[in-house]
């Protein structure tokens, strides 16, 4: 079965990679160790997981203006994810991802739960506003 998710808004080139699917929102400032790319906030549902080179699915964005520089910083350090896929997001995530040249999408239908799980290989196609699960 061909599994796909349509997104409402999108930026960036087509990318393929391994999915990291979170049930909890994300901030690169509150949750992430910006030297290792590991999620380190105690109690975060993905605590201990790496976002490096992943296609990260997060239902929400949390707080934080500083995220705008943080994405460029992690890209510079070569620990950035391949793409961010948000359910709802905020301008900072979008401004930060575009500044860093990291593909980003917002709004999804259907929800990732039941369609994609961590470890699946997925393709993000911003121009077609489509996410495809490849395996």
């Amino acid at each position: 079965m061909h599994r796909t998710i349509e997104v409402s808004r999108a930026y960036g080139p087509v990318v393929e990679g391994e999915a990291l699917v979170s049930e909890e929102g994300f901030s690169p400032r509150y949750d992430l160790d910006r030297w290792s790319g590991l999620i380190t906030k105690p109690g975060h549902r993905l605590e201990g997981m790496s976002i490096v080179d992943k296609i990260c699915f997060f239902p929400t964005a949390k707080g934080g203006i500083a995220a705008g520089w943080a994405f460029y910083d992690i890209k510079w350090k070569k620990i950035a994810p391949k793409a961010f896929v948000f359910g709802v997001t905020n301008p900072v995530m979008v401004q930060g991802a575009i500044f860093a040249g990291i593909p980003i999408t917002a709004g999804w239908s259907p929800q990732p739960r039941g369609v994609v799980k961590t470890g699946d290989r997925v393709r993000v196609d911003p121009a077609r506003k489509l996410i495809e699960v490849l395996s």
Partner: protein
Amino acid sequence: MELTSEERAILAGERGEAQRRALEYQLEVGRFWGAKRFVPVTSVHMMGDIEVMGDGGLAWLKAEADLGARCRVATTTNARCIDFAHCDRLGQDAGEVAKERELIATLRRMDVVTTDTCINYQTVYQPHLGEHVAWGDTGTVIYANSVFGARSNFESGPAALAAALTGRTPEYGFHLDEHRRATFAVQLNAELKDLADWGAVGKLVGESHQDYFAVPVFHGFHRSPTADELKHLGAALASYGSMGMYHFIGVTPEAPSGTEHLSEKISVNEKDIERVYARYDLGDGNGRLVVFSGPQQSLLEMKRLADLFQNKRISSDTSCFVTTNSAVLAQSRDLGYAQALEQAGATILQGVCFYILQNLSPMREKNGWSNMVSNSAKIVNIIGAHRFNTILRRTADCVEIACTGRLK
């Protein structure tokens, strides 16, 4: 997007390469959000320090300055990561301190006014109703939108700087009437006597409605709130809920007259507030770190702290930090508040916020800090990645914890 002749000239490179790149970037952001045009801005407030920017950000900034990037509108800076008077004692890296100096010099070369404050709305610039601005951090944005009725999205460092260079920002989000209307109502059935209580309200409402476009309207409160109370409410809503605007009936300029039209209605009661305080894990009960920061303290907060710490002594095992900006600190010295705090054993840091201090994780380990106690619900939320166990307490309780070194 519809472009004016001036914007087309910028894109054609007629105003220089820095402006051209800035507007190209703003166009991408605008397209993502479906903006139809740009709006002129009168004030920019940007976050830019070595801790948030890193080496890559600094290299980019220097290249921009070399390209001739200069601010077209008044541009101020947010709190930063190094207080040069305290960096050695705090064990901050000399190399990063040098980079921070270089960064500040680069910003000044670009005509940025380095105010280093996250309370610009209390101390630097108060925009009027309907005024378009491009601000960050989030606490400044929610205050501008809600209390002043000005119009700003969360503008991250690169986006704010782009607005500074082009004098405009894409018109989406809170620049548009359609996103400024209340989406749910919150009845306040609590006394809310302390600033931490206001942060607790922000936590409760923000955590349960994490959405930039959710706009609560508060009503039913028994008195008029103060500026510092609204500051802590907004900072917590923005932090826990990623929210950029709220209304408060009888208080904020764009509040609706009633809440009948809203389908979602919630309330915050006294017991909800008490439950927030009761839910923190106290670890081993140590009170070795007490922080009054995030946002920086206003002059009236400095006075309150000075009053509470009067004739008291902070426990020798406890570090207590107070952060504010240079203007408030100068006035606090004139008035004797700063001396009272320092005599009690507190360290006052200028121009910084505790949670973005450079080298904070190693600082935590070196000092054996595990619990962090604060009266700011915002900082209790945002410092998690540095692996503090955080606890929200009322201001007077924080003072007592600092003096006894123990949590109850």
